[in-house]
């Protein structure tokens, strides 16, 4: 394999990894606060369709991403009202959110279906990325850099700030956090809204950096892979980044399977299914290593109802 191909593979890998990394970072914060939101896929679809609509009407990418984040955060708040205020079942509500997001995006996206969307490029000057090797550093879409910055930011927030400590306390022991005077529900609302915004930005990646148009179910289950990634990473931001790039690699096989003969030993459908199968295998490997003792936040998925 020539170095050009290797660089091309690495570039595609980073692109494919980025939306799942962004969405998984959001979900990581949500789960650290003790909430399980299975609606990531739905929120990503909302973000993706809003991005397409705003980009095509205004041509302003920044505005489009901001609207996507806001819309997905709003969708997340529906989940919040149900699970946090009305203490509804989080699993069922998350599923409902995905169904709603899928339906909403299909309806809202109809006028934009098939229209090509102008993509965003690298934030660096083009002269820096003329050489293939330099392109690997400076030639990615802005989302790739944003996701990596957010990895550090989320780590710093959770481990180095007081607010992050409170958020983790709420997720590990909601009762004692409550008795210390922190608003468990308030913290969880904030986390859920942040998770929604991140899923919205992840959704924006698809039309602006990966497949520059709107089609129904554009995100093809990547939101669910993001959820698996959080488990895979044992709720740690840096491991999350490594995992996302691993899944990114799994995802690009399908692209290369169509063009390269060395992939033809197995049918192309196998390569397309690989990221999903790899997710299952990886989940098994993780459970083998941890031998039962889980690193999940102790209150994950459990509703909190303040006494009195």
């Amino acid at each position, binding site marked *: 394999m020539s170095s050009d191909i290797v660089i091309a593979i690495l570039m595609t890998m980073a692109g494919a990894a980025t939306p799942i990394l962004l969405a998984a970072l959001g979900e990581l914060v949500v789960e650290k606060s003790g909430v399980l939101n*299975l609606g990531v896929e739905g929120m990503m679809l909302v973000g993706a369709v809003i991005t397409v609509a705003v980009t095509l009407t205004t041509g302003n990418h920044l505005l489009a991403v901001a609207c996507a984040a806001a819309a997905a955060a709003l969708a997340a708040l*529906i989940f919040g*009202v*149900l699970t946090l205020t*009305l*203490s*509804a*079942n989080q*699993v*069922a*509500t998350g*599923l*409902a*959110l995905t*169904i*709603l997001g*899928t*339906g*909403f995006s*299909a*309806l809202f996206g*109809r006028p934009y279906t098939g229209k090509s969307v102008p993509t965003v490029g690298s934030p660096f000057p083009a002269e820096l990325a003329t050489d293939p090797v330099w392109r690997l550093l400076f030639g990615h879409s802005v989302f790739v850099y944003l996701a990596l910055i957010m990895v550090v930011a989320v780590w710093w927030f959770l481990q180095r700030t007081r607010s992050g400590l409170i958020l983790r306390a709420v997720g590990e022991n909601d009762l004692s956090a409550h008795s210390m005077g922190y608003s468990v529900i308030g913290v969880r609302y904030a986390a859920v809204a942040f998770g929604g915004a991140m899923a919205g930005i992840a959704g924006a990646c698809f039309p602006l950096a990966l497949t520059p148009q709107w089609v*129904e179910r554009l995100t*093809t*289950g990547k939101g*669910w*892979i993001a*959820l*698996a990634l959080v*488990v895979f990473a044992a709720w740690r931001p840096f491991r999350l980044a490594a995992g996302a790039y691993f899944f990114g690699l799994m995802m690009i096989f399908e692209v290369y399977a169509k063009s390269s003969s060395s992939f033809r030993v197995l*049918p192309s*459908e*196998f390569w*397309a*299914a690989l990221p*999903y*199968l790899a*997710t*299952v295998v990886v*989940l*098994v490997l993780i*459970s*083998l290593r941890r031998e*039962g003792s*889980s690193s999940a936040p102790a209150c994950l998925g459990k509703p909190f109802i303040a006494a009195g």
Partner: protein
Amino acid sequence: MQFRLEKRQEPSKLLQVLTPIGAVLVTMVLGGIIFTLLGYDGLGAVREIFLSPLLNAYKWQDLAVKAAPLIIIAVGLSIAYRANVWNIGAEGQYIVGAIAGTGVGILTNDMTGWWIMPLMMLAGVAGGAAYAAVPALLRVRFRVNEILTTLMLTYASVYLLNYLLAGPFKSPTSMGQPQTVMFSADQSLPYIIPGTIVQLNALLAVIVALVAWLVFSRFVFGFQVRVVGAAPHAARYGGFSADRTVWLAMLISGGLAGFAGILEAMGPVGRLILQFPAGYGFTAIIVAFLGRLHPLGAVLAGLMVAITFVGGEMAQITIQLPFAAVGIFQAMMLFLLLASDILVRYRVRSVRRAEIAT
């Protein structure tokens, strides 16, 4: 005056039955308003989606066709969810069930005999159950969360279907189309009401629900599933195995999803095609909840959701409402039902400020 929630001693049985109906009614009102605000004919949408299929007797047969797979899958999911086993990959088990049954169908395509149809159905059940056995094994052996594995396997199953239709399963006479042979007369479900499109699967759906209800309410297994789901620690104390419950819940829900899959292939579709996965496995999740995780509730909820499907198809033609609107109405029903749950478990009491202070 302020409101306060008080936990009920027992969840209210009456509200458990009334809230799904309330959720549907509120969906109609709220959905009408939202769709009007979105610039559609909101009133027309509600009328077409919720009422037209009922008022138009000619459409009742379509309700039976759409409700049958939803009911069969939702009955299985109801059992699984009661046991706290979150199988959300029924769509994949539905597809693999159809694939397994169709495999038998391809081998027996030029044979005749009464035994072919039950054999295909059996293969369908086995296929669905086998595909659900993977997440069951992973949960029991490795403590891997079944929500993620069942869903990942659903995505993989679609590619398995695509692969088979492009090669091994492709009909030699399909002229390049990715589809299997048409099923023969001995492989196709009979019509049970003359002059309609209602096939045997509609009757089987009702039988499945009745059998599940009997088993669930009368026998030890039903009790076991409910106890393990509701109180895992008590269940262990009582000698019930949580692992065995996971197995049973997954195999039953997977097997029923596979059953629905092969019935759909032998009935309305008539062969396997690329468009076979119609999302019934996902919609059945809504049906299961709307039916309050009860087998008989699943029948009513299945009919209710079938109304929205048939109504959505009508609304596409009559008022040019995009079919995606149906998904939004269905999601709203589930949201409102989940929101109403708090009324089942809690009592809303108005209290005076003075009382709060004390």
